[in-house]
Structures are given as structure tokens and as C-alpha cells.
């Protein structure tokens, strides 16, 4: 569905700043959402996700910067003149109208002919699996069904962009998982650009093709989920997306870092110098008994010694907590043989991982 990059982006933010009195909610954000993308704004509570979305929708005006929908600068335009629709976290279904009336609200404002309107409402309710619920009132539906109505009410207008503010936040875990896939299916089917706000990294990774990780009103890193996970650019991103081990060290050469215990590891330093943190994901680490020559320094792997302090069998893997001189390192060992070869607690082990799985970030001085 994603068009070539020559087309103008559906949404463009240029150095957008939003201040409320003395709080800076959004602190200079620039981004482009290409047509047909499933774009996620991911970040912790209070980082400015909702504010960013509300500025695109027209409910807040930016203090500085430009917001473009296609080629049009929309700053100053009221929401009803913007070709975007929003799915609110609280759903905001009109309680005094039936489901069908809710869904046709936007079409009526656009003066769509009665005959066409009926068909489109039925079609979209069918798409979200609520074909026979048109005559009910919102309070007669479950949370998940209300969520679908909110989605249908926005989608039926074929907006240029659909904005979703934590649309699954109020659902229980199982329903949320189901709706994540459902949303993705619907997006493929209608081909509309989605901008999705969430603080759930798993949700963002499941659904989005591009994620912007936000922190304190800024974008920390922007890219496909895989890039963010494999090569996080900052300690914050490394910690926010999944689990990662960060080991303190100092740049030693073009492709080497001296860890604080003296061990040299190889990694892409990408032009950094001075004090850094070396990161590796727990599932990238191989674990074996100390001194095992098979595990040793096989083909230039990075190596670290430690002692097992805890193991936990969690089904898909066994989590091993290893004490090293640089602190605790988490390892997810594959249970290829029912987990029988996992070293027991208090045994000395050697950890190895490949340089490709190693990333380098600035030391986290702004720990959260």
C-alpha cells in the first residue's frame, strides 16, 4: 500500500512546538507520514503524543511550526475543515443517537445523498463486523463493539488521514491483541493513512510500519520497528522497546569499546567518542559454562564472564540473570532441549554475542 517517496506526504510536521502556559508539551517535532502508512507515535505518559495528535486534528493550535496535510498548511483551520478524522480514546459516541446515526453523522455534514449514505453506512458497519447493530444505542454495546463503531464513524468519511489516540487502551488484553490485528487488516483494506498513538511498545511494533519514539516532547528516533529494536539510537529507545542490557564503557577505536571492567568488545561506534553504553538484547546472547572452548571467542564474538544468580523458565525461553562485574545481564536462552542445558544458579558462565547484535548509545544521563 505504501506509495513511492516521490508523492507528497499525507502529514508533515515542521518544527512544531506546543506550550501550555509554562509546560512545553511538544518541543520541536518534525516528521513526515507517507500516504498509506501505519504510523505510530510511541512514548511514555506525558511525552506529548496526544498533544501532537490534537494539533493534527485541529483541536489545539501549535505555538510554533507548520502542519501540512498534503500540500495544504492547516494551521488555523478548525477541525471541521480538515480532511482528517479521529478515533477518541473515550470513543465519544453520541449517546442520544443510534449506531447508524452515529456513523452517518459525518456523511450528513458532507451532504452525501440519502441513498448513497445508507449503503456506505451498512458497508462500513459490515467491515467492522457490526452489520446488525445499526439500530442500537451506544450504551447497548460492549466496549470492544463501541470501539469498532468509533472506528467505523471515522472511516466512513474516507479521510486523508485517520488519527487514533490509544484506541485500544480501554480494552482487556485479549481483546486488545485481537483488535490490533483487526485494525491492521482494516487499514490494508481501506488504504487510508493511520497515525496511531500508544504507550504500548508491543502494540506499536505489531501494527505500525513506522514508529516515532517520543520522549519529553521530542522524537528520540524514527524508523521501522525492526531498526528501532535492532539498532536503537539512544539509551531511552533501547530501554523503551523491549529489554536491553547496557554495559558502560569508553570508545577505544573505530570499531571497539573498552568496557569498564577492561574487556574489549567490537561494535559499530558510528562516530561516537568518550563514555558510552554498549547494548545487547537478551535473546542475542549465548550462554555456556565458563571455559567451554566451543563457546569461547568463536570468530570474534564479544565475550563476558559472570555468575548465574537466577533462572526462570518462562516457556518460550528461560530467562537467566547473570551477575557480571559490569552489573546484571539478562539472557533469554532458547529452550531447544526443554531447557536442560541451562546453567544452574551459582555456576560460572561465559556470555558471547556477535558484533552485529551490538549497539552503542550515549550513556543515559537522563535516566527516567
Amino acid at each position, binding site marked *: 500500500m505504501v506509495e513511492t517517496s516521490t508523492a507528497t506526504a499525507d502529514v508533515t510536521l515542521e518544527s512544531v512546538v506546543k506550550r501550555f502556559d509554562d509546560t512545553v508539551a511538544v518541543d520541536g517535532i518534525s516528521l513526515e507520514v507517507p500516504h498509506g502508512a501505519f504510523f505510530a507515535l510511541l512514548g511514555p505518559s506525558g511525552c506529548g503524543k496526544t498533544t501532537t495528535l490534537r494539533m493534527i*486534528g485541529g483541536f489545539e493550535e501549535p505555538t510554533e511550526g507548520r502542519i501540512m496535510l498534503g500540500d495544504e498548511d492547516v494551521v488555523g483551520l*478548525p*477541525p*471541521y475543515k480538515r480532511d482528517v*478524522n*479521529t478515533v*477518541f480514546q473515550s470513543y*465519544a459516541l*453520541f449517546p442520544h443517537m443510534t449506531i447508524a446515526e452515529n456513523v452517518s453523522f459525518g456523511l450528513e455534514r458532507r451532504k452525501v445523498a440519502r441513498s448513497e449514505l445508507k449503503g456506505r453506512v451498512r458497508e462500513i458497519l459490515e467491515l467492522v463486523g457490526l452489520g446488525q447493530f445499526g439500530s442500537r444505542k451506544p450504551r447497548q454495546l460492549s466496549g470492544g463493539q463501541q470501539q469498532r463503531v468509533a472506528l467505523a464513524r471515522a472511516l466512513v468519511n474516507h479521510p486523508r488521514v485517520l488519527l487514533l489516540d490509544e484506541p485500544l487502551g480501554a480494552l482487556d488484553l485479549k481483546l486488545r491483541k485481537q483488535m490490533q490485528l483487526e485494525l491492521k487488516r482494516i487499514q490494508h483494506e481501506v488504504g487510508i493513512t493511520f497515525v496511531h498513538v500508544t504507550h504500548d511498545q508491543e502494540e506499536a511494533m505489531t501494527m505500525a510500519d513506522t514508529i516515532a519514539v517520543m520522549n519529553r516532547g521530542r522524537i528520540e528516533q524514527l524508523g521501522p520497528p525492526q531498526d528501532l529494536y535492532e539498532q536503537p539510537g539512544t539509551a531511552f529507545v533501547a530501554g523503551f522497546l523491549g529489554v536491553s542490557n547496557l554495559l558502560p564503557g569508553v570508545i577505544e577505536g573505530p570499531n571497539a569499546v573498552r568496557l569498564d571492567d577492561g574487556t574489549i568488545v567490537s561494535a559499530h561506534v558510528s562516530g561516537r567518542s568518550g563514555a558510552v553504553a554498549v547494548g545487547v538484547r537478551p535473546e542475542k546472547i549465548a550462554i555456556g559454562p565458563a571455559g567451554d572452548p566451543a563457546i569461547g571467542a568463536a570468530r570474534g564474538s564479544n565475550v563476558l564472564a559472570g555468575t548465574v544468580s537466577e533462572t526462570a523458565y518462562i516457556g518460550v525461553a528461560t530467562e537467566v540473570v547473570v551477575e557480571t562485574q559490569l552489573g546484571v545481564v539478562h539472557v533469554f536462552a532458547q529452550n531447544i532441549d526443554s531447557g536442560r542445558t541451562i546453567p544452574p544458579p551459582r555456576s560460572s558462565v561465559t556470555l558471547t554475542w556477535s558484533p552485529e547484535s551490538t549497539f552503542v548509545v550515549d550513556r543515559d544521563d537522563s535516566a527516567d
Partner: protein
Amino acid sequence: MRVKHHLLTTYAMLVIGYLMLPIAVVILFSFNEPEGRFNYVWQGFTFDNWANWDAPIGLRESMITSLEIGVLSTVVATILGTMIALAIVRHHFRGRASSNVLVFLPMSTPEIVLGASLLALFIQQTGIFVIGFWTIFIAHVMFIVSYIVVTVKARLIGFDRHLEEAAADLGADELTTFRKVTFPLIAPAMLAASLLGFALSIDDFVITYFVAGGEQTFPVYVWGIARVATPPQVNVVASAIFLVAIAVALGNVLWQYRSSRRQRGAA
């Protein structure tokens, strides 16, 4: 347990009896056939008072005046009060906090003080105000507005702000949003408040008496005539007002019951 239950029932009946007794007497004496000019002693049963309810001179006119003022001031106060409530809840403006408090003043100030000060105001401005129908109207709008503002404000605060944003998001301008979303949601509160306001207007004596001049509303008429006579027709009108109030209250209960059943039932 049983004894306690019976005691409670008896107690409730006694309280209801205490509340209803004066009204029962009013209704009963609307069927009295008094001998003199005062309708205080039971003489005999008749329907004449109801058939000739407007026999006493001035009664019909005072009732019409009361209804006119009640309807007019309620309609005007409902519109004004709703706009004030919208402004207080939806917009941040200088003096928002103080208008929040000021709106309560007419409700909490003794009526006699309000009436006296209003009269003083109207008399000083005789170039503008002619004491009579319109000064009563102004006074009634003033005290009804408070009830409207307080009730509608509570409703506005109670409903999801995102509803109006959702309407705008779906292409409705400010006026359409109000017509299609805000108004239908606050209408029940507006109706309840205006019914109360209308009842207060029909009932008001103290303030009205100060600013009425030569004009007579029903309560002012009753007060005036009570010194020389108490025609049973006064009881007839009072009973009729009571019956209408009961009918409205019952209708309201029935309507709420039906709509809550419709919401729960249809599936």
C-alpha cells in the same frame, strides 16, 4: 423485624399525611358552599365554585397575568441561563470565577431584600421602568436564571467534552455541533430547570409584591382580597394548579421510566 417494618410504614404514612393535610383542606374547601364572605367553615358540598371559577372580579385577570409572566420569564431566563452556563463551563474569560459565585446570589439572598432593592432601583429609574407587568417580568427572569444556570451547568460538566470535539471532527461547525449534540444532551436539564422556574414564578409573592405596582398576579390578588373576603374560587384555582403540577410530575416519572426501559430492553 416485622414490627420495625410496620413502625417504619406507619411513620412514613404519618409524614405523608402531615404534608398532604393542608393540600387536602384546600381541595376540600374548593367544594364548600360558604355562607358569608369567608370560606373558613364547612357548610355544604357544591360544584358551583368549579363551574364559576372566575366569578370573583379580578381573579381571571390575575391568573392570566401570572401565566403570561410565568411563561415569558421562564423562556427568556432559560435562554439567558443556558448561554451563561455554556460560557462559564466552556470558555475561559476574565471574571469566570466571580460570575460562578454571583449566579448563586439571587438564590441565597432573602427575597424580601431582593424585592425591596429592586423596587428602589426601578423607582430611581422611572424614566426607563414603569412599575407593573414588565418590572415583575424582569424580577422573575432574575431569580429563575440562577436555577437554570446551576442545573444546566451541572449537566454540561457531566458530559464528555470529547463529544463536541467528535462532532467538529466529523465536519460539524459550531452551530451544527450545538444543534445536533450539545442541545439534545442538555435539553432534559433545561426542561427540568424551566419547569422549576415556572413553578417559582407562578408562586412568587414577596418580590412580586414589591415591584408589582398596580399589576396583580394570582398570589398578589389572593393577598389583596384576603382582607375583605376569601372566595372559594381561590381554592379552586389553587387546587387546579396543584393538579397540573401532579400531572407534570407523574408524566415526568413515566417518561423517564419508559425511556430507561427502552434503553435497557431493546436488543
